[in-house]
């Protein structure tokens, strides 16, 4: 199997500046297809910024500038010719706090499809909604109340609706920004199970401040500190015999 792994995302000498500050410095890493890659590091180390670079959500922030390379399937996503809207359909995102729209569950999941105007998907919207909710492991809980507001759901359910919403547009990569940090342990366990199943089909990059979570769900882990990539390796190796002293100290909880 390992030889068949294809590279999905590749960063080379990637820098991100926020006004005069360098928020990400010389990041080079390769993210393989259909695996879970975790990004860990102390608060403010740039892990969310790194994640948001992959679907260019940082573009929304005034004063952000990047250089270096960030390739998705060999194509630099910061090239002039890149359609950001198209990119974000390919690279879905789940946020730290569940952020469903104040619309029905059905309309939440259908939203991306409707906006995308993909005839194939729009014509069988019911199927797409059902498929996505099933993939997000929430269908059975809510199938009888699709027309009810998504705001009535619990936090964990809302987050899974948000995942379903991201899946509905058939992305290839899914970015998750501490998707369980606002949830209770039970809901967190459900999200983790879900991540485990989703990687059969999707390439997943997840930011987490929870070391155990990274160890449980990811195949490789990137450790970031002060905007620099300190270590990037197989999760099994990182958590048993890290090669960098800082990684070891962070993982064993000596700081952070």
């Amino acid at each position: 199997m390992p030889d068949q792994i294809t590279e999905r995302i590749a960063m080379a000498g990637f820098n991100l500046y926020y006004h005069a500050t360098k928020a990400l410095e010389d990041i080079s890493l390769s993210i393989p297809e259909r695996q879970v890659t975790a990004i860990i590091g102390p608060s403010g180390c740039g892990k969310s910024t790194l994640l948001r670079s992959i679907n260019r959500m940082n573009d929304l922030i005034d004063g952000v500038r990047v250089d270096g390379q960030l390739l998705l399937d060999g194509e630099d996503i910061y090239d002039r010719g890149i359609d950001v809207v198209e990119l974000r359909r390919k690279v879905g995102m789940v946020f730290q706090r569940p952020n469903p729209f104040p619309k029905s569950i059905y309309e939440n999941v259908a939203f991306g499809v409707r906006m995308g105007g993909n005839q194939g998907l729009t014509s069988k919207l019911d199927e797409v909604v059902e498929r996505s909710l099933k993939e997000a492991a929430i269908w059975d809980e809510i199938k009888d109340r699709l027309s009810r507001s998504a705001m009535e759901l619990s936090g964990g359910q809302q987050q899974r609706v948000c995942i379903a919403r991201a899946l509905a547009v058939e992305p290839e990569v899914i970015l998750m920004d501490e998707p369980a940090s606002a949830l209770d342990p039970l809901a967190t366990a459900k999200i983790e199970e879900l991540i485990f199943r989703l990687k059969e089909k999707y390439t997943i990059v997840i930011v987490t401040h929870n070391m155990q979570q990274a160890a449980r769900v990811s195949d490789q882990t990137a450790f970031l500190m002060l905007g620099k990539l300190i270590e990037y390796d197989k999760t099994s190796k990182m958590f048993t015999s890290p090669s960098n002293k800082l990684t070891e100290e962070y993982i064993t909880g000596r700081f952070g």
Partner: protein
Amino acid sequence: MKRAASINRISDRINIGLTGLATVLIFAILVVILGTLVAGGHKVITWEFLTQPPREGMTKGGIFPAIFGMVFSVMIMLIAVLPVGVSAAIYLHEYAKPGHWLTKLVRGAVNNLAGVPSIVFGLFGLGFFINFLGRGLDASLGKETLFGQPCILWAALTLALLNLPMIIVATEEALRAVPQTERAGALALGATKWQTIWHVVLPQALPGILTGTVLVISRGAGEVAPIMFTGAAYFLPTLPKVPTDQFMTLGYHIFVMSTQSPDIEATVPIAMGATLVLLSLTIALNMVAVVIRTRTRKALRRGR
């Protein structure tokens, strides 16, 4: 220690007393105004009063043409002010760079515009709309005098200008209340900026915009200064039919009745009745605004 504590307690009492007194005073003023109007005007308010034109130099009859003209002008005002104001607010809040000098300049201009006395708007309307725009239009169309005179159109546009800052501020406020995470959520799903605004931001901002609209209606209905040079008439035998007609309107009608009546004794009750109608309308509209605000706030919390 003991003395300081008792001084504190006394000053506390005084403060409660003073602020309470101010509150009571405000309420009392409202009660006195309403009481005077109800006492002096309630007898004239009948179905005929609301549906008949004034007769015999405004000493008899009703106020229907004034109500009609008010509604007419406010509607045109809304048609003018809503699209412009809401669009400007969307641009300022969603597209313009917040720190940019041009954004700051425009926002400063909006705030200053809000502070301009309404009589200045009236004079501006006369100079710009009627003398410049209207006469220019007439000249280029080769018409006798159609646009180059006071009429509903120019009065409504003057009112629109007066209310533009209010709509912009209310809309911006409503847009600001929509959480940034909702926008991010939509954009991350591959929605374009405009789709995000149209399908996610505006529906949630709508209650705030509606509230602003209702307040603007009530202000537009009551203002006299902006329209007295730009379109309001002392008396008209017929109802206006097109926007280039002059119009009677409630606020101006009250002004005329109280200052230029040939028989003050006979006119006062009618003027009071008309004022009562205008004030009730304004208060009712403000209450509608409050209801919209609280209901939609609750609905949003539930998620509709």
